[in-house]
């Protein structure tokens, strides 16, 4: 190492061991002053562990952390903060019922005789907001502002604390294309200011767009660091996955069959607010096509799916599956009628986390004569079946069929759910954000599975927030905005789609149908 290199943070030979696994195995990460440094890796590659070590949430067994060339001990997040390290977590840490300003100053409030002094703070926040183009309304409640603005609040929190090393943990997952562009600009602004940024992501296009260098981790090991200027998407993905990855999905032209799912004027109440989350939605899904419902999170997708799958009752409207009215059918009846559901939240719905993998794999069909005899579970049959699925869908886990679902990685949990739902041989597959939080390898796999189902003549309804996913998979795109379908396209430009998703444009139904 030469003296000329100016590293603001160095994590040298970090090793962190969890029971049964080395989450970080001799990892070195050097962050230069004033650079945007991407940290790339699949799920379970050890990115979060490494950042948690840097942020003081975990202590490494081995290795040192240096700040400005001097070794430092980071025992808890307070230490990290004192060293100027700030982090925007993937799931924001904001108090919903506090105002933006209150959230920003929380923990570092100025007080005088025990009373809050907010004027100074307000000035500083507004100055920062101005300087970096981070538009916020200081007096709005966090619960009332958009996800994009919430993220700006998180960023302002770091700036308010004068952090100069900013960690962004998958910041773009919840943003619209326009918001992502804005965020990229903001990050470039920080860089120009001399702040150093660590940018954790799965998305190669973002790395190519904004990062200077990129470090890649795979299975807890350090693979290498490259200059973005000298590399390509393909090379990065090869480093991350360890093999070549297909970006463009090879899709046969669609071969559309009969109507499988027909939804008419569906209205579903919102649980959180006293209104309807889904307001009179109608659409059809045919055999052999992937229909994608695109939209920004919280525009009624969740309730739409709950209504379709029977988790929530409809207020009005009808649903037909293969010509049969299932509007009032129970969840089990819908499942028997040929509906499979890959749920949005794999922990809340998709899995019984304390059950073993094999128990989870029969969750939708344990009652079939194949798996039980007079109510007694045929354990041997369940085991055989589970082993078959594990093999076929390449579900990886510590102890095979008897692994507790909780202990599996997110990608493999999702694979298990997909295995279970696809193996049911459904007429209609409803997949809600099936690749959320997964890495490139797993995403590729899941996309291929969905395409395969479509080519087998199944109807696939995909609900996704990821534009790339929408673009590469869908045969038809429906855009949902505030509980209504505002667009219906066979193909559409990304920018255009973004405008529909943000509610800036809409087609009325007749136009959409024509």
């Amino acid at each position: 190492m030469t003296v000329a290199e100016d590293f603001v943070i160095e994590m040298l030979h970090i090793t962190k061991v969890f029971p049964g696994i080395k989450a970080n195995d001799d990892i070195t990460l050097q962050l230069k002053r004033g650079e945007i440094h991407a940290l790339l890796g699949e799920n379970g590659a050890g990115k979060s562990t490494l950042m948690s070590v840097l942020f003081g949430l975990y202590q490494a067994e081995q290795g040192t952390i240096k700040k400005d060339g001097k070794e430092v001990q980071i025992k808890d997040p307070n230490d990290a903060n004192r060293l100027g390290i700030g982090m925007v977590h993937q799931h924001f840490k904001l108090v919903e019922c506090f105002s933006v300003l209150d959230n920003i100053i929380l923990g570092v409030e100025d007080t005088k005789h025990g009373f809050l002094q907010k004027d100074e703070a307000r000035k500083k926040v507004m100055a920062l907001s101005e300087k970096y183009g981070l538009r916020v309304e200081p007096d709005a409640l966090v619960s009332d502002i958009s996800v994009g603005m919430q993220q700006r609040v998180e960023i302002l929190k770091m700036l308010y604390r004068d952090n100069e090393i900013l960690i962004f943990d998958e910041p773009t997952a919840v943003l619209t294309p326009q918001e992502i562009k804005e965020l990229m600009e903001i990050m470039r602004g920080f860089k120009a200011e001399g702040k150093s940024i660590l940018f954790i992501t799965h998305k190669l296009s973002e790395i190519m767009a904004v990062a200077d260098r990129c470090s890649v981790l795979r299975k807890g090991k350090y693979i290498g660091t490259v200059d973005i200027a000298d590399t390509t998407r393909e090379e990065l993905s090869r480093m991350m996955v360890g093999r070549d990855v297909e970006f463009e999905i090879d899709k046969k032209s669609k071969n559309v069959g009969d109507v499988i799912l027909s939804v008419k004027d569906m209205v579903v109440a919102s649980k959180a607010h006293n209104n309807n989350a889904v307001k009179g939605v109608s659409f059809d899904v045919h055999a052999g096509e992937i229909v994608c419902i695109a939209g920004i999170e919280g525009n009624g997708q969740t309730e739409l799916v709950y209504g379709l799958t029977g988790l929530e009752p409809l207020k009005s409207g009808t649903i037909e599956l293969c010509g049969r009215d299932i509007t009032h059918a129970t969840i089990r009846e819908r499942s028997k009628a040929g509906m499979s559901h890959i749920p949005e939240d794999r922990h809340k719905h998709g899995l019984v986390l304390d059950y073993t993998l094999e128990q989870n794999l029969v969750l939708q069909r344990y009652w079939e004569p194949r798996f039980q005899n007079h109510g007694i579970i045929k354990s041997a049959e369940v085991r055989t079946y589970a082993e078959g699925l594990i093999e076929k869908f390449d579900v990886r886990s510590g102890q095979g069929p008897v692994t507790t679902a909780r202990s599996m990685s997110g990608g493999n949990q999702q694979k298990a759910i997909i295995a279970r739902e696809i193996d049911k041989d459904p007429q209609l597959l409803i997949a809600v954000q099936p690749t959320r939080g997964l890495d490139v390898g797993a995403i590729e796999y899941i996309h291929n599975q969905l395409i395969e189902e479509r080519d087998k003549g199944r109807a696939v309804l995909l609900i996704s927030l990821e534009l790339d996913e929408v673009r590469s998979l869908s045969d038809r795109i429906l855009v949902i905005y505030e509980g209504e379908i505002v667009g219906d396209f066979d193909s559409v430009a990304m920018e255009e789609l973004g405008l529909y998703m943000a509610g800036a444009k809409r087609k009325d139904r007749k136009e959409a149908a024509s």
Partner: protein
Amino acid sequence: MNKKPLAENQMLLTILASVISIAAGLIFGSVLLMILNPAKAGIGISAMLTTGFSSMDQFGKVLYQSAPLMLCGLSVGFAFKTGMFNIGATGQYTIGAFLALVGAIAFQLPWWACLLLSLIGGAVWGIFPGLFKALFNVNEVITSIMFNWIGMFLVNLLLANMPIMLASAWGASNSDRTANLAQANPGAVIPKGGLDALFGNSSWINISVFIAIIFAVICWFILEKTTFGYELKACGYNKESARYAGINANRNIVSSMIIAGALSGLGGGLYYLAGTIQYVLEKKTLAMGFNGIPVALLANSNPIGTIFSSLFISYIQVGGSAMQPNFSSESTDIIIAVIIYLAAFALLMKGVIQRFLESKIARKSDPGAGETKNDTSGDATNAASGAAAEDAAADEADDPEDVAAGPESGAAEDAGEVEK
């Protein structure tokens, strides 16, 4: 090489943790005894620890008392597995006992028919909290506590108005308790099955403990081997995903409470049909049902574990009652409580042991760490890196030392507190 490291052997860890916790409880209990009555502490401790095994008669008492405890523990544990807290075991137990006694005294039924009645009585008392929970989402803790009191006073009321049930109707003078079964209906006394000869003519022993064990095995079978148990546990672990899988959670809530109630009710039947105890009209709920809670907790709601935890608690209780003359019943209750309380820390203790072992393994598997030598680390290292980390490809672009100096910026400034 194939030896499973201790840190990963869950079974052994659990047992070890339980033993350590129980030992800690006993030590703490002894300290309490020394504070309460230093002169008699030695006698007290030995009474507590040895009475249960001191004679076959006392051992018979341990077994006899463990049966209702076991059933109450099974009841609470079974409901726990379904995500319900059945604090109403005592009410179900009281109703079960009452119906068993009515069958025995008023209707002169044989013992097995009386037990069946107790089963039904408990089940009926379990339905109500289950139904309220399923239909109106009323917290089962509140309903079952209310049903404890309703059950107790209802039984008192009914007994007071059924003169044939009371001891006074069968030749005894007192009317505050039910008749002695030996006089009222010897056929309703649970048979001793020849065990009395084995247990030195113990007045306590009968086949009830075996009945209880059979029910423990049945519970285990239902929970582990049947689709019904699969559904029940799915509801208990994650009600939402059970719903997602098309399981009718409400029906399972009611079923589980019926079964839990039946178990408690049977416990009441077993206790009072032994013929050694008469039901006394009292103004407080019976402790047996509540004691089912620590029994279940100690066993982590596992039906087979419940067999052992109820035997343990029964043993301590028998020991505690033998301390009576030297220590007041209140102080023995406190000591029993302390022991049970600390024993329930088994789960916590397990975590502590696991962390301790893991930190040892982690230190061992660091070849460069220096402080520890590596000769024994083969096993541990292997286990630690085991499932995931063996990666064939640490291949390509391995070296990152390729950098030029970045732009200079100011030194670190102190930031404020951490975000919470």
